[in-house]
């Protein structure tokens, strides 16, 4: 298990993250600031660094470049006071492992740090096809941890949305990405899905394409969305018969939380739209 370096030992969040990481039995060290972090990296090996929660993304990326001069494979979880779409794109391009701004969840950050520390791959799991504020297009490998990583960036990119709309959209997107990776690629890390996120003045549009052969909605008996109106729990029995884990609510949840959810003919491409109230077009 590789070691984690947590920068900024004076804040409560870092204490909470450190406590959660300790619960995962992860070896870690805390250091107060950037110079000390560099000094420690020169002295011993770390797999991941978590930056200070009161820093700027730009400063963190500059630090990351320095740190990778010492340890090239270092993974970095960026915590920052705030982020702009340009910052998030720069972080993606810099192969940051995950990115968070307030409100922080120490448990979630620790969980992603655990992935970072235990994951031998990851550096090329998120490939940027096109990125500018308002339009992000990526190709990602079909791994659960990559989906989790991607969601941290998508959340940041939609940070300008009202909180409840952002939560709904992210919930739907997460379900769709997980479905694509699971049912479209069997979580095969050699396969990829494409995700395009577009924020316009009045809508947030997500498009996901997986490499699978799609599905027939009539055959979705194991999913809640395929239940007949008079038997809203029919899928539970179907899943039990098929020996599947409890669940199957993904598509139903997704379709309930966005304004439009539409699949292509074979079912391996999906478009999600959330309409926004009139707002500035300076875009997420």
């Amino acid at each position, binding site marked *: 298990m590789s070691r984690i370096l947590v920068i900024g030992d004076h804040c409560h969040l870092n204490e909470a993250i450190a406590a959660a990481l300790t619960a995962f039995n992860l070896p870690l060290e805390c250091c107060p600031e950037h110079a000390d972090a560099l000094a420690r990296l020169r002295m011993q090996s770390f797999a991941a660094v978590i930056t200070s929660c009161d820093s700027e993304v730009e400063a963190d990326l500059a630090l990351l470049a320095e740190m990778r001069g010492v340890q090239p494979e270092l993974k970095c979880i960026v915590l920052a006071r705030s982020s702009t779409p340009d910052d998030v794109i720069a972080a993606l391009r810099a192969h940051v492992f995950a990115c968070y701004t307030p409100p922080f969840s120490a448990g979630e950050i620790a969980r992603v740090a655990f992935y970072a520390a235990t994951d031998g791959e990851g550096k090329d799991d998120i490939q940027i096809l096109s990125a500018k504020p308002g339009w992000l*297009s990526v190709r990602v490998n079909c791994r659960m941890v990559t989906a989790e990583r991607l969601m941290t960036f998508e959340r940041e990119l939609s940070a300008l949305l009202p909180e409840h709309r952002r939560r709904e959209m992210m919930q739907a997107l997460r379900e769709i990405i997980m479905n694509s990776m699971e049912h479209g690629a069997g979580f095969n890390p050699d396969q990829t899905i494409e995700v395009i996120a577009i924020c316009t003045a*009045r*809508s947030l549009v997500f498009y996901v394409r997986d490499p699978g052969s799609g599905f027939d909605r009539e055959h979705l008996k194991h999913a809640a969305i395929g239940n007949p109106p008079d038997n809203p729990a029919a899928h539970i029995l179907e899943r039990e018969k098929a020996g599947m884990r409890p669940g199957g609510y993904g598509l139903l949840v997704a379709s309930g939380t966005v304004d439009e959810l539409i*699949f*292509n003919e074979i079912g391996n491409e999906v*478009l999600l*739209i959330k309409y926004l109230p009139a707002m500035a077009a300076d875009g997420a």
Partner: protein
Amino acid sequence: MSRILIIGDHCNLSSEIGTALNALELPLEYAAGHADALKRLRMRSFGVVVTNCDSAVEEDLALLAEMREVRPGLKCIVLARQSTPDEVIKALRARVFACFSPPFDAEEIAHMAHYAASDSAWRDDIQVLSAKPGWVSVRVNCRLITAERLMTFAKELSMRLPENTRQEMMQALREILLNAMEHGAAFNPEQVVEVTAIRTARSFVFYVHDPGAGFRRELLTHAAVANPDDDPTAHLTLREEAGLRPGGYGLLLAQGTVDELIYSEIGNEVLLIKYLDGGNSAEPAHTT
């Protein structure tokens, strides 16, 4: 130039199309109905058939299957009383050359028939990637005629939109499609553009992806969309200096007729959205 067969010699539209084709000096014949059309096809060679304007798409497609038994390379321009998205998709899959429903424009149909009669490399120009009512994805070769053909299907697929909305959307799509083919592929017929049209309850979304290296908006000095606020005709001088044809209004026009027009980072992908509720997109959905 191959011969054209027009089915339905009793209707005004057929006569008007015939007159327009005569003006283009195209050889043509009229057939009284389906059986007569089949008989004529057995007797001599035709390159193009224009179906009867008061038929149904389904009948026309059944007839086309029969006609292609006789003349496998036959091109067909379907005219029909009306069309549904399902029918338009079937027509696309059946490699119909173009599809029209009322209001008909005899000149436009004659021009399309002229293209069809003189074009030999069309059959695989529109490849259906995915098609169901509400979501059609195609890959099209970068030829002007293919763009015009595709527009006839796009028009039919958006038939249920209010007329002004449809016209605006089609105008924008045409500009973007031609831009993609011209600037993204220099109308190279070996290259392809991908077009996806998605109709949801409250919006119409088009996505166009060309194979080019994109463009930088700052360098678009030859296009009206980049003119400084205080000089709305600056691009005209620049086009003249560069020896370009007059124009450059495509993007400006497209931008003005849809609700959203957004390019990817490098500029070879573009998304167009037209909201169907007049822009109150966060309001509850209306029926479709």
